[in-house]
């Protein structure tokens, strides 16, 4: 029903996520921007599922599951990192420097 506008909103949200990733140095806030992007994608799936079938909603289901798992593991990593370096500012974390 609201296909066109939904896709536009999705695009805007996605780009907001990208901007946030490029803008922030805090690891946790970076993660939140990732979640924002994932949600934008979910919106696209759902908007299109009206015309193309319920497979879109099933896929959104999977996306959410994966997002949950990813958030858990990612935050665990950040905790482990924080214990080492006492900071979550990504500018200071460059152990993989070449």
């Amino acid at each position, binding site marked *: 029903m609201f296909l066109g506008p939904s896709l536009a909103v999705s695009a805007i949200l996605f780009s907001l996520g990208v901007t946030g990733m*490029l803008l922030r140095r805090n690891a946790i806030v970076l993660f939140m921007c990732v979640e924002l992007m994932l949600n934008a994608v979910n919106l696209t799936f759902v908007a299109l599922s009206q015309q193309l079938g319920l497979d879109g909603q099933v896929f959104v289901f999977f996306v959410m599951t994966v997002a949950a798992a990813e958030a858990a593991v990612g935050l665990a990593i950040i905790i482990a990192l924080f214990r080492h370096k006492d900071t979550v500012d990504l500018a200071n974390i*460059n152990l993989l*420097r070449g």
Partner: protein
Amino acid sequence: MAPAASPVANGAGLLVLLPFAGFLANGALAFLRPRSKRAVTVIGVGSIAAAFAVGLVIFAAMLRSHVEVPIVRTYWSWLRVGTLSVDAALLIDHLSIVMVLLVTGVSTLIHVFSVGYMGEDPGYARYFAFLNLFVACMLVLVLGASFPVLFVGWEGVGLCSYLLIGFWFEDEQKAAAGLKAFLVNRIGDAGFLVAMFLIFRTLGTLDFVQLAALAPQHFTPGEPLVTAIALLLFLGCIGKSAQIPLYVWLPDAMAGPTPVSALIHAATMVTAGVFLVARAGVFFGLSPVASAVVAGIGALTALFAATIGLKQWDIKKVLAYSTVSQLGYMFVGVGSAAYAAGIFHLATHAFFKALLFLGSGSVIHAMHRAYHHTHSHADAQDMRNMGGLRDYLPTTFRTMWIATLAIAGIPPLAGFFSKDEILASAFARGHGAPYWYLIWVLGAAGALLSAFYMTRLMLYTFHGPNRTGDAERAHLAESPAVMTVPLVALAALTVAGGLLNLPEGLPGAQWLHRWLEPVVGVPAALAGSAALGRGTEITLVVVAVALAVTGMWLAWTRLHPEQLVPADRAPAERGFAKLLAEKYHVDEIYDAVLVRPLLWVSRTVFWKGLDAGAIDGAGVNGSATLARTLGWLGTRLQTGQVGMYVAFFVLGVLALLGALSR
């Protein structure tokens, strides 16, 4: 082509094989048992004498059966590349057999002489090995059936010349002389090679017998291409036969043992150029321009070298410049299409020049002996240290005078007939082309000077008071028989040599001319013949004899050997005499104009610039630096900063989207 007439054809290979086997045997002895003088002598002299005997047998067979067709004996197929087909083949015809007899005959005498001359040298076996190799290569040169085979011999004699000039290689100057000879010859060889390429390109074959028939059909007389071929071939001759501008190696080559100078740099190797012109005569006959150039350079060299010889004090240097000068005469001969005359002078010159060199060797040998007794370090080759040797070396004295008369051109000795015929043939062409009169004038002037400087040599060496020193004088003695017998033999040949080609009107006249007719007749006909009237001929003969006598008389009366001072106390030359003594500074000019710039270019441009700078620096080191820089640039991507990785990520996404939206 006649099928193998047995002794003639099969003998060809034997001619080359015998000296080559001698080389191998003596070479082995030089390594394993260098002190075995007896074996080396027998092998060394024997192999050449055997080759001479084989040559005589072949010659006799040719005389008897009147075989006029050239005989080619092919041994194996050497080069088969595309359309080029060259066989390892030897050619026996009237020209090559004359050269074979000359080379082996004079070689035998010189080998015998060497037994005495080099008897006490520690490199005895090595010397005879190289000498045998030389004869083998020279025979390949004269017997070659095609240009490449001839070239193998050509290069081989060049190699042997290098080995023998620098025989006493511990002396750096002597070794350098050998190198100089080799390098200067190389320049000529380059011309020779290009000529061969041109010949193959235009005629498709390099075989002499085929070329003699093909060339006149293919080329029109005077065509630029055939002139180019002839001139390039002549460039090879200029190098090998020491003409202007590549003669500079011959005087330096006197650093080698004197028998080597006699054999290689008087009688045989240097005459290879003249032989080449005769052998490839068809090209020269087709190109009047090239023939004129040949005669011109020959005449110029004849005069130029003679002037230098006037003021040389080293006895061998005088003879060296004399050789260069006489070679010029031979080229005048073949240049004016008188091929038989040129070969005739080649033969007579071989006799008297070999005699002169061996005689000087005998003198030097005696001087060395004398100085050895008193441990003096004076120069044994400087004429200012000699004088009055007629009392001490009578046989040498008498034989050398015979040779001097011959080279001056006094009848009835050999040199008179050959030189006269050359000058006459040059004069004959003058009718309608004044250029040839100039050639005659240069040749006549050279003849005058030849008589002068040879008389000067004899005067200073054998006449007048002795300047060797009181202590040494007691030890001056004639050389042993092994050295004087060859001198006598060569003297006999010098006297009788004229019989080879007596002028018209005398019994048995023009024998060599008729003998060589089958080979050189075509080129001579192509060049067109010129004849002289009877009266003109006799006038020219009289003029020639007059010049010779005048030269000798001038030297005899104007020079005062009693005023000479031994070399270490002699005053320096001044003025024009100095210029002559310094050989017109030609070597210094070459050094400044050619050698130094070439060295500079090699060192600075090619070595430091190209090799070290461009190839090492930019190429090798540069690519390493480039790799390292690229690698460093790569490391700049791995900062470990997540923000940067995200930025690149986004860039990639944008690119993808851009591609999609098209």
